[in-house]
């Protein structure tokens, strides 16, 4: 039952300080959660207020672009697989969206994008002012004001790509870059990276992935977002899943090797693989602890349900026989609920060990 989604995702997101990926249906509630999750993470960094505001603006505009330029009607089956990604990678923030568009709309969109990209800052400002004065509003309600503001705020050209799917539809990728240092002339992350991430998430049925700092304050908005995604399940499933989520997320916070600046870095992903809900959590870990946890999870996996229940009660009563595994109740709980036990693996990246655990419900 090996599930290596997180290992694959880690290899793509390895150099990121922060990654947030959402794949699925888009509405304003998702934007609300996404902003909260990112705020939790960004507030722990040293970004200035002005930069945080800029980031919020860019996220909101990109997100609303999906709603604005996406397919009319936006039936659920037409919008699954749309993607929203925010990453902090080597000194730049990247905001990437991917959504379906009708082929008939591509030419006018391309024209707007290329026009905005081709203008000098002075001409862009002139066009911006003219658009503010102009009473006429384009059919989509934006008339490119959003695109203009994106260029003015990032001082970068807009990166985009259309991938044709059939006679009627294409998939539109759109990417913004906001540099920490305007002098930074390193090449931008290519859109192909977003395509890879989308593919990995889709193939493994994941709808949320988050890499970053998992101290408690950052966990709560993730739980709200997950709750929203499972709200149509039975109450029993919701409760169990929520429980597993809390334990897995806190497990990252507990076991993650602390970085020099106090971060507890990890990667979390969640989804539905066609049969079961799947939750994976990964974190950097000391080699010794990794070995101990592997053995411990192996021990839990070999136990029957009755044995796990007894063991749970004993740990509750007497505490853990191995103090290095903290209270240990969390993992026993996850093992009790997870179909086929907990999938546990360790990957090596040079000196660094990444421990990944996956539970299914």
């Amino acid at each position, binding site marked *: 039952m090996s599930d290596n989604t997180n290992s694959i995702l880690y290899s793509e997101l390895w150099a990121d300080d922060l990654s947030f990926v959402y794949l699925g249906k888009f509405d304003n509630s998702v*934007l609300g959660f996404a902003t909260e999750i990112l705020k939790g993470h960004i507030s722990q960094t040293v970004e200035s207020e002005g930069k945080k505001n800029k980031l919020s603006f860019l996220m909101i505009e990109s997100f609303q672009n999906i709603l604005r330029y996406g397919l009319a009607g936006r039936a659920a089956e037409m919008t699954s697989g749309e993607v929203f990604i925010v990453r902090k990678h080597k000194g730049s923030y990247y905001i990437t969206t991917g959504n379906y568009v009708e082929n008939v709309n591509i030419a006018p969109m391309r024209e707007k994008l290329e026009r905005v990209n081709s203008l000098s800052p002075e001409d862009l400002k002139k066009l911006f002012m003219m658009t503010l*004065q102009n009473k006429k509003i384009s059919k989509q309600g934006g008339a490119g004001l959003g695109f203009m503001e994106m260029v003015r705020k990032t001082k970068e050209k807009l990166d985009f790509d259309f991938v044709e799917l059939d006679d009627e539809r294409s998939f539109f990728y759109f990417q913004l870059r906001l540099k920490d240092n305007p002098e930074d002339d390193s090449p931008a992350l290519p859109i192909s990276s977003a395509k890879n991430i989308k593919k990995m998430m889709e193939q493994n049925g994941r709808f949320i992935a988050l890499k970053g700092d998992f101290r408690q304050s950052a966990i709560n908005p993730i739980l709200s977002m997950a709750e929203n995604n499972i709200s149509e399940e039975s109450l029993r499933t919701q409760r169990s899943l929520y429980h597993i989520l809390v334990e897995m997320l806190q497990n990252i916070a507990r076991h993650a090797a602390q970085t020099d600046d106090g971060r507890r870095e990890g990667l979390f992903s969640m989804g539905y693989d066609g049969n079961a809900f799947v939750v994976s959590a990964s974190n950097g870990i000391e080699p010794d602890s990794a070995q101990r946890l592997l053995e411990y999870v192996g021990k839990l996996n070999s136990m029957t349900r009755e044995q796990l229940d007894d063991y749970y009660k004993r740990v509750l009563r007497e505490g853990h026989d191995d103090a290095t595994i903290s209270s240990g109740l969390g993992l026993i709980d996850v093992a009790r609920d997870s179909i086929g036990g907990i999938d546990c693996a360790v990957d090596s990246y040079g000196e660094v060990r990444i421990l990944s655990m996956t539970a299914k419900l």
Partner: protein
Amino acid sequence: MDTLRKIYRAKSDFYPRMVFDKEEGVFLIEGRSLPEDSEAVYGPVLEWFDEYSMQPNSETKMVFNLEYYNSASLRKFADILKKLKQISDHSGTNVSATWYYEDGDESSLENAEDLASSIGIALEIKMIGEA
């Protein structure tokens, strides 16, 4: 003429707090303005100004105090300022507007300057906390 109705709207995650009250002389938009459909939010305000402009107060002081806003909202702010300019040009009453921005929020400052020069209205731009 009937008394002009008042607009009071509480703030939420996506919508600003709004007060348009002729009797009290309060004209205010504050908080976050991130509506996907900006016409639904600001259409009624623009209509309100059409009525207000028939018989404006001797003094109209509009306040924008926004934390975040999207580009669709920015366009509506431009439309509101245009209405204010019309009132000022046609009625000869005192019309002014103030735009507050947070220290360090250059984008907001820049937007305010662009609004002022493109609409041709005297927009007082103030940093929050500044006297």
